[in-house]
């Protein structure tokens, strides 16, 4: 096992964690919403894709054409109908409500699908790899990394080049003043969670292709997403990608020493960065 290999495999894995984290980062950055149900929404997206593939015979990639709009709508409705009501009372009410949503999703999935493991099957691409000088890179991890990079780049374009993005940044800076300037914060928040859910759904479907999932798979995704966001620094999308890569590389190093250390090594790297730089590597969000 050479070091270059560890860095590349770990870095690509980081693309996955970044994809997990984008939705979380967005909803915290714009509406200061700490979404405890985020991991479960990732898993829910995978189940929605599973159902779509059952009923339509689409492969998982094609199912995105249905899953993404459905999850956008769910995010919009969730924010508009429920979460907006929790935002005026500080940090605690949204925490409690999303914690409740997390429990509802997990138990709903358990009721509907049982505790069995499921997988989304995409065929040959799952195991395909590119080879050079005895050096292997999986096609699927590369694809996931590319999706994360393109996703973050398009979000940056949205934030810094569009009228909607300007409104998102203004509301993130100072929601009360934004409202006084004519912005309908509640509608904007609903759009933000809708867009965040598009990335959550992408993460969920790709996750379901890469590995098995069950109703209880959500919380560990939430922790990984949190760690990527915190390492990268709150509010910075590219920071989140770097945060994911730090996590992935730490896990790859841990795994190369002893396979049982993989997850622990990631958490240790997170703790180390929290100690050295409590606000993360590239903090942006102002409070």
């Amino acid at each position, binding site marked *: 096992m050479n070091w270059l290999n560890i860095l590349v495999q770990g870095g690509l894995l980081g693309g996955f964690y970044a994809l997990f984290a984008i939705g979380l980062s967005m909803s915290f950055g714009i509406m200061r919403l700490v979404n405890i149900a985020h991991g479960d929404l990732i898993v829910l997206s995978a189940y929605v894709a599973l159902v779509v593939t059952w009923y339509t015979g689409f492969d998982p990639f094609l199912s995105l054409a249905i899953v993404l709009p459905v999850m956008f709508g769910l995010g919009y409705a969730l924010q508009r109908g429920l979460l907006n009501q929790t935002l005026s009372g500080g940090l605690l009410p949204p925490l409690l409500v999303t914690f409740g949503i997390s429990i509802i999703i997990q138990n709903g999935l358990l009721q509907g699908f049982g505790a069995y493991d499921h997988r989304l099957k995409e065929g040959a691409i799952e195991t395909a790899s590119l080879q050079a000088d005895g050096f292997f890179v999986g096609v699927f991890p590369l694809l996931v990394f590319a999706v994360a990079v393109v996703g973050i780049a398009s979000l940056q374009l949205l934030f810094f080049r569009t009228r909607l993005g300007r409104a998102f*940044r203004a509301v993130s800076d100072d929601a009360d003043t934004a409202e*006084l300037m*004519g912005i309908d914060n509640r509608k904007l928040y609903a759009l933000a969670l809708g867009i965040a859910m598009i990335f959550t759904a992408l993460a969920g479907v790709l996750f379901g292709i890469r590995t098995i999932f069950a109703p209880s798979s959500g919380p560990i995704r939430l922790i990984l997403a949190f760690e990527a966001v915190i390492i990268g620094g709150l509010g910075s999308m590219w920071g989140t990608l770097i945060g994911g890569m730090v996590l992935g590389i730490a896990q790859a190093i841990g795994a190369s020493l002893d396979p049982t250390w993989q997850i622990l090594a990631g958490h240790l790297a997170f703790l180390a960065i929290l100690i050295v730089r409590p606000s993360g590597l590239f903090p942006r969000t102002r409070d």
Partner: protein
Amino acid sequence: MTLLRAQNLSAFYGDFQALFDINVSVEQGETVAVIGANGAGKTTFLRAVAGALATSPESVMFDGQPIGHKTPHEIVRLGIAMVPEGRRLFPSLSVEENLLLGTHSERAGPWHLKRVYELFPRLHELRHLPAPSLSGGQQQMAAIGRALMSNPRLLLCDELSLGLAPVVIRDIYECLGAVTAEGTTIVLVEQDINRALDASSRFYCFQEGRLALNAPTKNFDRAAITAAYFGL
């Protein structure tokens, strides 16, 4: 024509009553000052008009319509814009982005980016800088420009002079002339009484949440203002 009328307006912060049965009426095209000591309820009054504080529907009438129950973004759309106390520019946006934010109310009218830059040429030079890097006076210009971008019929100005040098304050008040020339109605809240009375045709003096005096600014009686201001 009466553009804004507050009738028996009361406003609360939780259990604390900040305004008691305030009656204020502002004619179209007028510039009216609201003066008073710290804590007299001047800012509360502006916030209630702008919708940031909930009041009963009929207690604030704009252009004959009750607006006391409406949200701030609905009220901006009707044509009331606010220059908030302390400027409150968006720190992560550039100067130009701050100005463009005023267009979210989607109101047509005489004010647009080019016109605001004509009024405040310095802002054009600084347009790509982040808002916090501007001086206090420049930030105040940007805050006024941002409010104008929504083409308001009524402009609410909260403490324009706060923390600014006298020469800068003079410049800013001179620019308000261009605003009133468009027929825009202005309500000025000020602690600087002389400045406020110079710029307005009528004034209201608040004292501890109540209306203490209401008079034209010409030939005003200084002793009467002092009495109303301090409650002597």
